[in-house]
């Protein structure tokens, strides 16, 4: 399989279309209105059908106007159903777009003899064929699909730059925006019109599946990757373009692996957008699953390491001078954590040179004893505090102190020490002095 000019144009058309859809889509995701993208992409069908029946022309500009009108109408209708019927927003969308979609199907069927709108094309698009339909632009032969989607991207980009402030503030805090004199509902209306126009420009090339996928997925993935609005928009564009490229490559390569010849390109682009979303979901720097898992493991390991130190310190404190040291098995048993975590924690305290592993068992090193002393001190200070100041019963405070000791800073320990004057915890054990 060789890469041809045809493939380049398919990727370019797909990427332009994906980026055009993804821009307003990112806004919809922030506004928790992503499903408006779904609703609007479904009403493109009746919009085009009605435009055709009214004007009896299939001039693309007429179709565009028809679909934009019905897109805005859909927004208003959903709003009406939601307010007038006190219907939940999801249900309102479902009612309006399915009803309009049904209307579109009936109209198309009724006018099937004259219209050349195939419902299948609306869903699948025909990106594979878009290369064949070329127009001249500045002396170049360019596929019409690329021009149309490029124009949509350009228009959306310009609008996003011009109304950057308005879009940003209304997306994050509607009431603040309203109090500052912006008009959130107007901005939302314009955004919906933009989405509708983009969806119409796009659906002919890539079909409504890809439109929905590209409206929602890149924005959602980008929102997991960054907290900053500007960065989010850039990520959105990048992810959209990348899904188009990977989607086409996958459509060329993957079927070969399992003995088929080709695969729907727009479907494959939607799937690749999904794959990129999963990557972002897993690997995002702040909110990714891997980072969050790692953070949790590190925290558990630190707590387990500190528990080992505390355990050994208390054992030394109580044991006779020449008693045998605790064995590794004893330590493991005393820690109430999983086997893997215990091994990690043991390796941790050894690596930090806080604990020595000898033939007889495990013992604290000098460093380890200092750390352990501070820890046990914090624990007993907390116990004292909980018992003396909060009036909790002495036999109820150990577990609480056990949890608090891991999250107590130096300053807090000093504050706690101010409260204490007995030098003993409620169980009568000495509170060790602060290390220097």
């Amino acid at each position, binding site marked *: 399989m060789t890469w041809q000019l045809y493939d380049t144009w398919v990727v370019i058309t797909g990427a332009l279309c994906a980026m055009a859809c993804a821009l307003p889509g990112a806004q919809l*995701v922030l506004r*928790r*209105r*992503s*499903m408006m993208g*779904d609703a609007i992409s479904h009403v493109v069908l009746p919009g085009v059908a009605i435009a055709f029946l009214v004007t009896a022309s299939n001039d693309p500009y007429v179709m565009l106007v028809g679909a934009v009108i019905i897109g805005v109408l859909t927004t208003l209708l959903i709003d009406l*159903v939601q307010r*007038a*019927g*006190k*219907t*939940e927003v*999801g*249900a*309102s969308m*479902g*009612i309006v777009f*399915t*009803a309009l*979609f*049904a*209307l579109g*199907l*009936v109209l198309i*069927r*009724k006018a*099937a003899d004259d219209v050349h709108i195939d*419902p*299948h094309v609306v*869903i*699948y698009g025909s990106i594979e064929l878009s290369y064949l339909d070329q127009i001249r632009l500045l002396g170049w032969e360019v596929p019409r699909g690329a021009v149309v989607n490029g124009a949509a991207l350009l228009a959306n980009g310009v609008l996003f730059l011009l109304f950057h402030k308005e879009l940003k503030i209304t997306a994050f805090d509607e009431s603040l925006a309203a109090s500052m004199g912006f008009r959130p509902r107007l901005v939302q209306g314009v955004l919906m019109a933009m989405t509708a126009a983009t969806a119409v420009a796009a659906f002919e090339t890539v079909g409504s*599946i*890809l439109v*929905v*996928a590209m*409206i*929602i*997925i890149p*924005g*959602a993935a980008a*929102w*997991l990757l960054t907290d900053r609005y500007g960065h989010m928009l850039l990520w959105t564009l990048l992810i959209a373009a990348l899904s188009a490229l990977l989607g086409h490559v996958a*459509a060329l390569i993957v*079927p070969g692996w*399992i003995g*088929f*010849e*080709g695969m*729907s390109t*727009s*479907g494959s*682009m*939607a*799937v690749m*957008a*999904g794959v990129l*979303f999963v990557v972002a*979901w897993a690997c995002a720097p702040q*909110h990714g*699953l891997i980072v969050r898992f790692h953070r949790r493991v590190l925290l558990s390991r630190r707590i387990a390491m500190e528990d080992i130190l505390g355990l050994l310190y208390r054992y030394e404190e109580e044991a006779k001078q020449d008693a045998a040291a605790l064995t590794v098995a004893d330590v493991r048993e005393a820690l109430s954590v999983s086997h893997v975590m215990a091994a990690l924690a043991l390796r941790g305290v050894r690596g930090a040179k806080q604990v020595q592993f000898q033939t007889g068992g495990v013992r604290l090193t000098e460093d380890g004893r200092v750390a352990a002393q501070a820890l046990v001190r914090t624990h007993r200070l907390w116990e004292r505090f909980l018992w003396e100041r909060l009036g909790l019963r002495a036999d109820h405070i150990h577990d609480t102190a056990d949890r608090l000791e891991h999250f107590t800073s130096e300053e807090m320990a000093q504050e706690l020490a101010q409260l204490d004057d007995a030098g003993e915890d409620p169980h009568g054990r000495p509170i060790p002095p602060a290390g220097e």
Partner: protein
Amino acid sequence: MMLATADATWWEAFERALLLRDANTVWVVLGVLALGLASGSVGAFLVLRRRALTADAISHATLPGIAVAFMVMVGMGLAGKSMIGLLVGAYIAGLLAMAVIVLIQRTTRLKDDAAIGIVLSVFFGVGICMLSLVQQMPAGNAAGLESFIFGKAAAMLPGDALLIGIVSVVIMLTLAIFFKELGVLCFDESWAAARGWPVMALDFLLTGLVALVTVLAIQTVGLVLAIALLIIPASTALLWSRRLVVVVIGSALVGGFSAWLGAMLSATIPKLPTGPIIVLVCASLFFLSLFLGRRGVLPRWLARRSLSRRVDRQHVLRACWEIIESSDEEDISMGDLLAKRSWSERELATVVERCMRAGTIERIDGDIVRLTSEGRERARRVVRNHRLWEAYLVHHADIAPSHVDRDADAIEHILDEDLVKSLEQLLGASAGEVPRSPHAINGGGGGA
């Protein structure tokens, strides 16, 4: 003449369909009827649980399930188009989609809308890819599979209708058995959880039923419109009542009726696809209810209008009472009335007209009116409410007598008997007596 003939044939065709004369029509009608009833009743719980759009994701997700099931069945050497096999695949894919939605919601900061949208479009994209592969398989003339996207009710066979019927009965029985549990889940999830009910399991049950209905619906009305059969009947029923039993039964009836009528129309009129027409019937019922339903726009508007008219009439009656009180004469001139409140001559005339129709005021001649005995009784009650409230505000809320009139002006219309009684007790006023006004009533503008 032309029209009459057209009408006659139309009616004949409709009658044929109505009386189930065509064997084909019988199965289609029975099948969609069962489907409408089942999806209406399940949809009621779905909408009340505020999960309407998850049905959208589930229905789009069935497509890859169907394609995979087809491939697996062909791979195992079976006939790929076994309906039950395809439906099982669709069902599993639907549940999987729901699981992914929950996973995204739980582990990211994305909300349900984005989670639903992502799952919907990715699953559907996978489905489209797989369909394009299936089409290349020698066994798979995938035309059959594609009909799941738009549905093909007219092609329903007796076996299909029977399958739909049996599953619908099972679904509705399940709903009946778990009626109370699902109801609580919809209205107060945390209460159910606090009582120790298995909320997760109940949610799973509901999702399973939704997936089941969707799977049945896609072959009839297609996967986009399958959502409509779940959402629209329930939303229609909610415009009439908020009682769970009524909503569920009403929703089932709306679903069943739309499906039946849609199938009839489609059998009667040529070139009218069944699925979309069912949805359009259903949507018409919804929009009718949106305006006429008990909780719809029109009744709410009427209720508000009747309240505001009653308030106007009571204002006139109180004005009359106050004029009589200060002048000790039964005759009231319109000029005096006009001076009592900031109302225009025309407004006043309209309200007085309405009072006369209600029999509380009678016109003596020209500009002079009088309260009837009933009018006097009502006026006394309003004035009493007004002054009791004023007295309450003065004595118990420490508000200056000059500031209480406007507040009492609003509340006098809605004080009920119990409240009046407790006010009387609190203020030591004897029943029936009209207390004195705590502030001066100026003839020119009692409302000020």
